C-alpha cells in the first residue's frame, strides 16, 4: 500500500510539474506578445503625426499613405487574433519601409526637423519591434517544443493546447542597422 502511495505521489508530482511547465510557457508567450503589442501601439500612435508631416511634400505617394492609414485603422479597430495582428504588422512594416525609401526623392522633406525627429523615433521603434518579435519567436518555439515533445505532449493534448505561429523575421532586420546612413543623408 505504501509503495502504491509513493508511486501515486510521484506520478501526481510529475503531472503537476508538466501542467505548470506548459502553463508557464503559454503565459510567457502571452506576456511577450503583450510587450510586442505595446511597442506596436506606440508605432500606431506615431503614424498620424508622420503622415501629417509628410502628406504635403509627398503628393505622389498618396496611395502608400492611404494604405498605411487604412492598416492602422484596421489594427486599432478591435479584437484581432494574434495571427491577424502578425500579418497586419508585416504589411505595415513593408509599407513603412517603402515610404522611407520614397523619402529619398524629397530633399525638402529630408531636411525638415519635425520629420527627422519622427523618422528617428520610428527607427527606434522598429528596433524595439524587431527585438519583441525575436523574443516572441523564442517563447513560441519553447512553447511549441513543449507541446510536441514527449511526455508533455500528452498533457498538452489533454489541455487542448495548439501550436502557435511564429513571425518570419525579414532579412533586412538581421542586418546591421546603419544609423549613419539613416540620419546623415
Amino acid at each position: 500500500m505504501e509503495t502504491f502511495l509513493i508511486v501515486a505521489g510521484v506520478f501526481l508530482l510529475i503531472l503537476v510539474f508538466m501542467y505548470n511547465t506548459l502553463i508557464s510557457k503559454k503565459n510567457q508567450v502571452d506576456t511577450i506578445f503583450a510587450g510586442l503589442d505595446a511597442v506596436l501601439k506606440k508605432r500606431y500612435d506615431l503614424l498620424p503625426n508622420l503622415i501629417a508631416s509628410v502628406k504635403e511634400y509627398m503628393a505622389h505617394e498618396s496611395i502608400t499613405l492611404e494604405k498605411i492609414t487604412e492598416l492602422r485603422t484596421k489594427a486599432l479597430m478591435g479584437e484581432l487574433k494574434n495571427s491577424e495582428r502578425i500579418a497586419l504588422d508585416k504589411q505595415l512594416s513593408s509599407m513603412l519601409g517603402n515610404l522611407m525609401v520614397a523619402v529619398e526623392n524629397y530633399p525638402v522633406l529630408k531636411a525638415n526637423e519635425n520629420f527627422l525627429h519622427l523618422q528617428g523615433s520610428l527607427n527606434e521603434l522598429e528596433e524595439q519591434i524587431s527585438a519583441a518579435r525575436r523574443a516572441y519567436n523564442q517563447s513560441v518555439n519553447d512553447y511549441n517544443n513543449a507541446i510536441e515533445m514527449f511526455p508533455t505532449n500528452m498533457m498538452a493534448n489533454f489541455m487542448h493546447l495548439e501550436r502557435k505561429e511564429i513571425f518570419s523575421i525579414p532579412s533586412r532586420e538581421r542586418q546591421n542597422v546603419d544609423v549613419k546612413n539613416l540620419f546623415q543623408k
Partner: protein
Amino acid sequence: MKPSLSSLLDYYYESMYPLLKALEEKRLGIIATLKKAALTLFCGAAFLFVFLTHTNLFIPLHAFLLSFMSGFLMFMFVYRHERAGYDALFKDIVIEKMIHFIDSSLLYSKVNSIPEHAFKQSELFVESYDRFVGSDLVRGTIDGVDVHFCDLHVEKKVRDNDDKESWETIFQGLFFVADFNKSFYAKTVVLPDVAERNFGVLGSWMQGINRQRGALVKLDHVEFEKVFVVYGSDQIESRYILSHALMEKIVQFQKKIEKPLYLSFVDSKIYLALHYTKPLFEPILTRSVLEFNGIREYFELLMMITGIVTEFKLNEKLWSKR
C-alpha cells in the same frame, strides 16, 4: 584620426626615447641594487645560520629556516620598495604619455580606479568580496562616448579545512564602462558559457534555474549562444540591446582577444570585464624599456581598449541618446 604603429614609432623616437633612456638607467640601477642586496643578504643569512648552529640555540633545520627566511623577507622589502618607485616612474613616462598620444583628451591617474559602486552596479560578479584594488584609471570621451576603464583586482577571503586564510581572486583584469548607444531600463548580463560547454544539455538546464541572475535569455545567434550565456530582467529589452549586429561583433571581439569576456548592460551603460592573469600596465623589471616591442605591446593593449567604442559602434547613437 586613429594613431598607427608607424606614427607611434615616430613619437617613440622623438618624444619618448630621451625619457626612456633615463628610465632604463634607473632600471639598471635597481637591478644592480637588487643584486647587491641579494648577495649581501645571502651572506648575512649564511653567517647567521653558522652563528645560530654554533651557539646550539636552534637545531640546524630551524636555524636554516630562521636565517634564510629573514634574509628572504628583507630582500622582498627592498624589492618592493625599489619596484614601487620604478613602477610609478614607468607609468608616468610610458603609460600616461602613450594614452595622451592615442587621445590627448583622455585623463589618466595611476593610483585611482573606477568606484566600487560601478563594479557593484554592473552585476557582473555577484559574489561578495573582501578586497577591491584598482589602478590606472583612464577617463574621458572617445568619439563622443563617455568612457572609464582601469585595471582591477577583486578578491575574497577564504578559509581551508585547516582554518588557514588565503585570498581568492573573483576578478582580475580590465574593467571598462561606457555609455551605450541605446536607452534602456532593464538589466542584461552576458557571461562566458562554462556550464553548457562542459555539461551540454544538463548545463543548459542548470543555467535556466540560476535564480540569482534572473531569467535566462535564449538568443537566436548560434555562435553567440555557444560562447555566452545571457540573463536578463526583460526578454524584449535584452534582445533590443543584443541585436544580431552587436552579437556578431561580440563574437568577433571574443575570438580576437581570446580571454574570458563578461558584459553587462545596466542603466543605459555597457560594462565590460576582460579577465587577465597579470596587472595590465606594470613593467617587467627584467626587460629593457628601450625595446620597442615592449612599448608596442602596451600600445596595442591601449588601442584595443579605446577601440571598443568603435568596435561595438557605441559612437553611433540612436535618436533618443543624441
